[in-house]
């Protein structure tokens, strides 16, 4: 069991928790050491996994999932700890590792109760990694819940503003989503195969193709809505602005960067892959909803004055794009969706990190009270601009690659319905430019608004470390997208095949 590299993605965070348990509450250095060592180990492991995976693929290993393994943990219901990764999971793991790594540095000076904060943070990471490595939907769901619960405490205790309200709202809405999800997953399980051969394993379920189309429709709606809530699908997105606005920096990073991706990932891995007929039939409903998300989020972001609200609405727009592209059900568009997940994950994490850093200095997030920060803290200003440009889709940064792949892929549909939604979606790039430039103009440029801000200092070394990690990743994807693109495209082959077969 421990020979499988994947399992270590869950074990390391657990070790991290154990390590933190040993630390004394007051010894900040010990806590930081544990976190740094473990998150670096995770990042290293993720890179290693990535390289190893590509190596195996290059060597001609064409299995759908690599590094598979499964261990029974509840015989009567055939629940297993089944793990395995394809190219998409590998990339998502990589993304999570990067963000966890950056998140640790972004919360270097977390106060109060640093130990407890990092304990919950580690638990959150456990859930996230566990989710991405699982191919047993029950285990997957379990890890999903593990990732959700710490959110409540992390926001409720370490947040700012009306944190209790936001924490409660976020948790309740996401839990509401997982209630739908739970029903959907149980439904999938009970129809997963002939009597006596029920299974939770994604590959087996997809291979069996046993779920009756009439059931698929119901289950598709349940699972898609369930994951869609986490993916901030209109009209279930309102936890996102409040939640992000109240969350502490690292939690916003991890939540917008990774946790929201759980939604998109689940949507195609479960809702679409396992229920292909329903996906073909019912995608249009959700295309409408996600299409609305894309434009709606962007428009809403235009008038917000709180930095985090702007970003949260922008996330609604960008994550809407992810689900939108997934629902297009073409290989290119879905590839774009994954790219968008990676890109959005990195750049939102960067955004939230920077907002946290700026907030930590100015003690306000209201853009009307700030201005000309570029002069005062050029490093943070430049980073913020880079994040902004990534968000509005500047070539050379990751956002462009993702958005273009989505648009080109989505445009493969020839009917008016899809095309008009694609064109509506493309409009968001203009609106995105509007709100990003509005923020940049008000926050960074122009004259200094507040005299007190003149005394502020620029980024410290750990803040630089955190942001540089993310920027390198963003620029990396933006400049050399093709290997990622190919990896994702290969991974989508079985899903696309299932879909085409179902369409016949």
């Amino acid at each position, binding site marked *: 069991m421990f020979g499988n590299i994947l399992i270590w993605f869950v074990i390391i965070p657990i070790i991290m928790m154990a390590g933190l348990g040993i630390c004394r509450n007051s010894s900040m250095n010990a806590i930081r050491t544990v976190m740094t060592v473990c998150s670096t180990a995770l990042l290293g492991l993720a890179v290693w996994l990535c390289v190893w995976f590509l190596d195996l693929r290059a060597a001609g290993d064409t299995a759908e999932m690599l590094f598979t393994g499964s261990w029974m943990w509840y015989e009567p219901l055939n629940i297993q700890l089944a793990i395995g990764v394809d190219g998409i999971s590998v990339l998502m793991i990589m993304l999570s590792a990067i963000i966890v790594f950056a998140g640790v540095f972004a919360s270097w000076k977390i106060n109060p109760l640093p130990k407890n904060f990092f304990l919950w943070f580690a638990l959150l990471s456990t859930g996230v990694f566990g989710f991405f490595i699982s191919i047993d939907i029950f285990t997957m769901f379990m890890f999903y819940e593990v990732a959700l619960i710490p959110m409540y405490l992390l926001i409720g205790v370490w947040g700012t503003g009306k944190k209790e309200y936001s924490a409660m*709202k976020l948790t*309740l*809405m996401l839990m509401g989503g997982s209630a739908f999800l739970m029903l959907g997953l149980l439904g999938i399980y009970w129809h997963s195969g002939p009597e006596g051969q029920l299974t939770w394993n994604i590959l087996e379920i997809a291979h069996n193709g046993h779920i009756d189309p009439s059931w698929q429709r119901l289950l598709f709606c349940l699972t898609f809505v369930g994951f869609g809530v986490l993916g901030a699908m*209109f*009209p*279930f*997105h*309102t*936890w996102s602005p*409040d939640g992000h606005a109240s969350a502490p920096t690292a939690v916003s990073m991890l939540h917008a960067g990774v946790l929201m991706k759980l939604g998109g990932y689940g949507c195609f891995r479960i809702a679409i892959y396992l229920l292909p007929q329903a996906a073909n039939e019912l995608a249009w409903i959700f295309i409408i909803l996600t299409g609305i998300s894309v434009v*709606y989020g962007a*428009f*809403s972001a*235009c*008038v*917000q004055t709180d930095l985090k609200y702007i970003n949260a609405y922008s996330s609604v727009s960008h994550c809407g794009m992810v689900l939108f592209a997934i629902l297009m059900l073409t*290989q*290119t568009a879905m590839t774009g969706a994954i790219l968008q997940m990676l890109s959005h994950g990195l750049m939102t994490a960067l955004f939230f990190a920077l907002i946290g850093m700026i907030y930590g200095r100015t003690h306000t997030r209201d853009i009307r009270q700030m201005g*000309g920060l*570029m*002069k005062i803290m*050029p490093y943070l200003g430049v980073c913020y601009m880079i994040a902004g*440009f990534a968000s*509005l*889709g*500047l*070539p*050379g940064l990751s956002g*462009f*690659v993702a958005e*273009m*792949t989505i*648009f*080109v*892929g989505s*445009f*493969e549909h020839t009917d008016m319905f899809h095309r008009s939604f*694609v*064109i509506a979606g*493309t*409009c968001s*790039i*203009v609106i995105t*430019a*509007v709100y990003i*430039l*509005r923020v940049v*103009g008000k926050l*960074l*440029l*122009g*004259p200094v608004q507040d005299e007190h801000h003149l005394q502020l200092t620029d980024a410290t070394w750990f803040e630089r470390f955190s942001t540089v990690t993310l920027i390198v990743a963003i620029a990396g994807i933006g400049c050399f*997208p*093709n290997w990622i*693109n*190919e990896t994702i495209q290969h991974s989508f082959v079985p899903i696309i095949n299932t879909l085409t077969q179902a369409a016949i």
Partner: protein
Amino acid sequence: MDITLPILILAIPISMFLILGIGGVKMSRKMAGVLGILGMGTTMALAYTVAFTYFFSGDSAFIVDGIRQQLQVFDVTWLAFTEKLVVSIGFLLDPISAMMLVVITTISFMVHLYSWGYMEHEPGFQRYYAFLSLFSFSMLGLVVATNIFQMYIFWELVGVSSYLLIGFFYKLPSAVSASKKAFIVTRFADLGFLIGILVLSFYTNTFNFAALTSDPASALASTGGATFMGASVLTWALVLIYVGGMGKSAMMPLHIWLPDAMEGPTPVSALIHAATMVVAGVYLVARMFPLYLVEESALTFITCVGAITAFYAAVVACCQIDIKRILAFSTISQIAFMMVALGVARPELHDAMGYMSSMFHLFTHAMFKALLFLGAGALIHAVHSNNYTEMGGLRKYMPITHWTFLIGCLAIAGIWPFAGFFSKDEMLAAMFANNWIWGAWMTMVAGLTAFYMFRMYFMVFWWEENPHYKEHKPHDAPWQMSLPLIVLATVSCVAGFIPFGELVTWNGAPYHIHIDPVVATTSLVVAVCAIGLAAWLYMKKNSKPAAMKNAMPTLWKAANRRFYWDEIYMFITHKIIFNIICKSIAWFDRHIIDATMDGFAKVTQRTSVAIKGMQSGSIQAYVLWYFFGAVLLALVTWICLL
């Protein structure tokens, strides 16, 4: 062809950007300036080598049977959307890209040099050079694009460089809002470009220019006769792509960003907003010209937009005070000129002379417009104001600037033997060949051009000396600034004699330029008359201009306010989009959607509050309820048993 030079042409500017951008903080100004200028100088040398090799080596790779060939020097896959739709980064060498390499590197180098003097005392000098390098890189990448998507990529990059450079003085709110406006307006146009690319690539299944233009008929066939709202999809695609060009090239109604873009440093205006980036739209149409030929309605659209814009901009330029604004409107007008020339070009009309002349004008215009802008920069540098009302009589104080500026004005007015004469004459000839209406209309615009340019010239260099000169004597700029002026003035004088038709034509076959005497004479006469009129009105201080202005106050004010385009845009964007749409959506989100979600919570909570009285802890109440319940059950049982 060896790929080292082309790669270096792109690699040097981008590495300069990275070096200056990341390491600039630690560098001295001098170091950064020298690095930037050296880098650009090298790039220019390399670009010249490439262009001269292409045009004059006679190598069989470049010219076969007298026809200049188009060749992809390299083409590396960057992103493969599908098997066919592949975005690659490459280097396309053909007459227009070679010509553009020369234009961009020349102007860029001149601006680099000029800026060393002009920006000497500005903070953020290193950053300025970094941005200039970024712009040069993007612009070079744009012109050598092998496929439409590469062009789109660099198209966006030039947009961002332009944003960064316009907003260079980021502490000025006006510069910030101008840069924002420029970016958003062009971005809006790029949306059209993007959709156009999507439509075009969907039907033709390729992004590659060579594949698209070598066989435009098959592109038409691939659409299978699909139409949308009465026009074929190919027309739609081409018009939408042209919309992208309209944004960058500031065609009506997307021109509003360009005058405001003058908030940027003047050398930047010369580089980006006069010579290179703004002609990207023209270049785009020229690049896809064979496709446009298939759909002539798209070309007609281009012609109409160009003709209206040219006239509009010329009229507005007559009523501006800010010299940079005058030049900006003049730029809009001149680019529209090129657009019209492209729009009227047909292979059957003198072998698409319009195309050739448009490119010719692009070349000459880049030179003399850069010259004018740099001259304006020198004036502003000396007077510290953009308005000609603060100038006047400067010819004695700034002779170099005066003479070079005069050459620029003569060139743009189309006076023989300056560069503008030749290119403009060819364009007008092409227009007359298509339809005399275009020709006559554009001749009138040419007259207006001569008028407003000389109006500015006389107001700046003649008229009456500003009394402030006694306290603060204006003088010619330092050598870094004067040298580019002199070089560009020289080029403006001689560029007309370049046998341009031999080098750049739409299909690579040489075309021998011959001056059409009627057209040439007409335009010359019109231009001279216009100059005479300007001289009569503005040479000496008098009350005629004021009288004219007072005679038609409404018209003058409307033209001065650029016919209220900005106000209309402000109304649409601020009042309608921002206040009505965005705010109502935000309101809807908070008060409907979010309130619904909160409503669920509130209903749950209210219900629980309402029924929590039942869990009062009062055992008496429990007993009471229990008892009633028991009685009820008994009753039910009894009824059932009956």
